[in-house]
């Protein structure tokens, strides 16, 4: 195992369906909707990007650039040593635009902009371009593990001393077409559901979402450090393989911890009956820990664990679980260790472990 060098989360930037662009507020005011899809509260992009560039930029790129800038400003970092992103589907709007025009125009009279922007690493490339950052730049595109893969790479870069600061983020956008397709695949509730009721109301399907969340990870703490990022694991569950509690015990052992150390589990439960069992199994095995959830606030998407980590980091710094996120209260002990547990459609399970800096 790699040397246990402390890694800190020193900055956050989050564009999401909630008002999350100002880190001095933490879900004080909740965007409550009655729907089966959530779209982002988008900031005024002119605050982040010059108008001539903004005009041609796809929406996910705008979300990504804005949240990365918020994050760098929050951390007081001008130039990260690496930029690493994760995205399940990349710039979907541009991809759909190019393929639709290609089909409708029978391959004629096509323009390059949407093709160029459809490339999956466009967000990390645009961030580098705007910063003039010549450093390491990677993009991961593995479904429900896209963001986790980016975090794992960030840990490697920091622990192998390739970098001392890494800007890492996860982002995906929801389009009308992708909503229609995933709706047909049975991913979403047939009837609109109220934000605060998604997690508690049993049903088939979740609500669709989107967002872009960035983290400035550093090998040095700062006055504003939110948390220490201890470890990340991606895994699958199989009937013949190790049980979920056993995978957790082995995972925690890598950091010299045991399940009793977990004060809070930030959980990817999404209101879908067929996804609920592993979350319940884990919650039951950690009876002393509080439980919090995020997908009623962000919606479900391939990189929603990035929103989850944003929430976990905010909870750690403020030592407070907002009422809207709390699923099971714990005994009021200080929150020193938070486990984030997520899976995407029963596949791509992941743990992210953070501790008080």
């Amino acid at each position: 195992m790699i040397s246990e060098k402390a890694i800190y989360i020193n900055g956050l930037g989050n564009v999401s369906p909630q008002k999350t662009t100002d880190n001095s507020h933490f879900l004080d005011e909740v965007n409550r909707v009655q729907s089966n899809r959530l779209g982002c509260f988008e900031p005024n992009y002119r605050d982040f990007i010059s108008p001539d560039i903004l005009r041609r930029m796809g929406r996910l790129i705008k979300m990504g650039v804005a949240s990365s800038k918020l994050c760098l400003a929050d951390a007081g970092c001008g130039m990260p040593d690496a930029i690493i992103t994760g995205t399940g589907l990349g710039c979907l709007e541009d991809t759909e635009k190019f393929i639709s025009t290609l089909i409708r125009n029978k391959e004629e009279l096509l323009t390059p902009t949407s093709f160029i922007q459809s490339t999956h690493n466009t967000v990390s490339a645009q961030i580098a371009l705007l910063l003039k950052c010549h450093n390491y730049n990677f993009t991961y595109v593995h479904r429900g593990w896209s963001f986790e893969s980016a975090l794992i790479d960030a840990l490697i870069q920091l622990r192998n001393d390739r970098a001392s600061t890494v800007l890492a983020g996860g982002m995906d956008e929801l389009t009308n077409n992708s909503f229609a397709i995933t709706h047909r695949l049975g991913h979403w509730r047939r009837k609109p559901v109220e934000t605060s009721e998604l997690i508690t109301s049993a049903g088939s399907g979740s609500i669709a979402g989107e967002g872009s969340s960035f983290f400035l990870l550093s090998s040095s703490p700062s006055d504003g450090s939110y948390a220490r990022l201890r470890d990340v694991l991606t895994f699958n569950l199989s009937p013949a393989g190790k049980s979920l509690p056993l995978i957790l015990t082995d995972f925690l052992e890598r950091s010299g911890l045991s399940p009793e150390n977990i004060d809070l589990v930030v959980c990817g439960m999404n209101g879908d009956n067929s996804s609920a069992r592993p979350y319940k199994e884990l919650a039951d095995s950690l009876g002393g820990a509080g439980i919090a959830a995020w997908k009623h606030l962000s919606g479900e998407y391939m990189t929603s664990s990035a929103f989850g980590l944003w929430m976990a980091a905010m909870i750690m710094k403020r030592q407070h679980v907002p009422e809207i996120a709390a699923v099971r209260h714990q005994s009021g002990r200080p929150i020193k260790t938070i486990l984030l547990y997520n899976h995407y459609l029963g596949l791509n399970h992941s743990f992210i472990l953070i501790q008080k800096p």
Partner: protein
Amino acid sequence: MANPVVITGYGIVSSIGMNADDVLNSLIGGRSGIGAITRFETIHKGKLPLAEVKHSNEELMEVCSLRSNRKYTRTALLGIAAARQAAEMAGFRPGQALRTGLISANTVGGMDLSENFYPQFLENPAKGRLRDVAGHDCGESTEAIAEYLGVSDYVTTISTACSSSANSMMLGAEMIKAGMLDRVIAGGTDAVTRFTLNGFNTLMILDKEGCRPFDENRAGLTIGEGAAFLVLETEEQALKQGKTIYGVLSGYGNANDAYHQTASSPDGTGATLAMGKALAMSALLPSDISYINVHGTGTANNDLSEGVAVQKIFGEKVPSFSSTKSFTGHTLGAAGAIEAVISLLSINHHCIFPNLRWSTPMKELYIRPVTSLIRDVAVEHVISNSFGFGGNNSSLLFSKYNPIP
């Protein structure tokens, strides 16, 4: 280097051969895979060339002994066909008490099937066969390869445009060095789609005559398809298991050009940084390099930028270099891995492969590519370059394996 990362297996599927032996024979025989479009319908048929893998999806399934009732994307099938060769060569079997990872890469995922879905879907959102779009994302092919090989300790996918699969080898080596995995099957796969063909066509960078890298009259790239994978592990482990070692991944570097979303900088900033990082990690000097397998797409912009960078790094003593994209076409997300295999073939078979279709030197550069096969030459260290959209520049440095005396 304390415990170097070595290569114990490789596999390749491309327009010039369905395995490493066939690819080597085509490279030695000067047989390019670039030709007419045959596999799918497009208005560019008869006008633009491609470097297609001639096997149909059904034939690829047969090669891989896959059952026929499951729908695979072509990206997945090409990937499985290449990865199984690499795994077999390295004597890989699941459950050997080694933590094994699969790191794959591609640029358009299952777009080949999505193209069947969208025409009906756009007419009516309730139409279009869902199984054609379920594998649209870039992770689908990786999951299919992982399942086929029985790899589960770590599985992920990288997409950084045309440097994608060079980057999967970089991550694989880093994870081994960090002690997180014992062995990694790393590479990439991409199928030709109408999406990419038309995309590059809108940029007006497709050469109607087939790509002519580093030629003064070059007019663009030629898109190809294929897949390649390498098996990476530590030297110590490979020796303990009595494996044949085919080369050492002695250096690598990724840097961002940060100049333009698609164009490369005129001074080759990113390319210079990437090659410099790879050299620094390997502790080698530019004069130690025997051969550069250049990115060499054949576009006016890339070859000039890369050529300037090569001149900057190597000065007056530029090693032999060639773009084997003149054989394989530009296989996009698979290119880094395909050219890594070609670099290993160069080292192990003591050959430097020619840059086809070259006749006139570029007026801005004093360097010229190798244009005919060089045989019986000692190839000690090879740099393989892969550069992509978004200024994503990667260099890998492969060395001949010299057993510990």
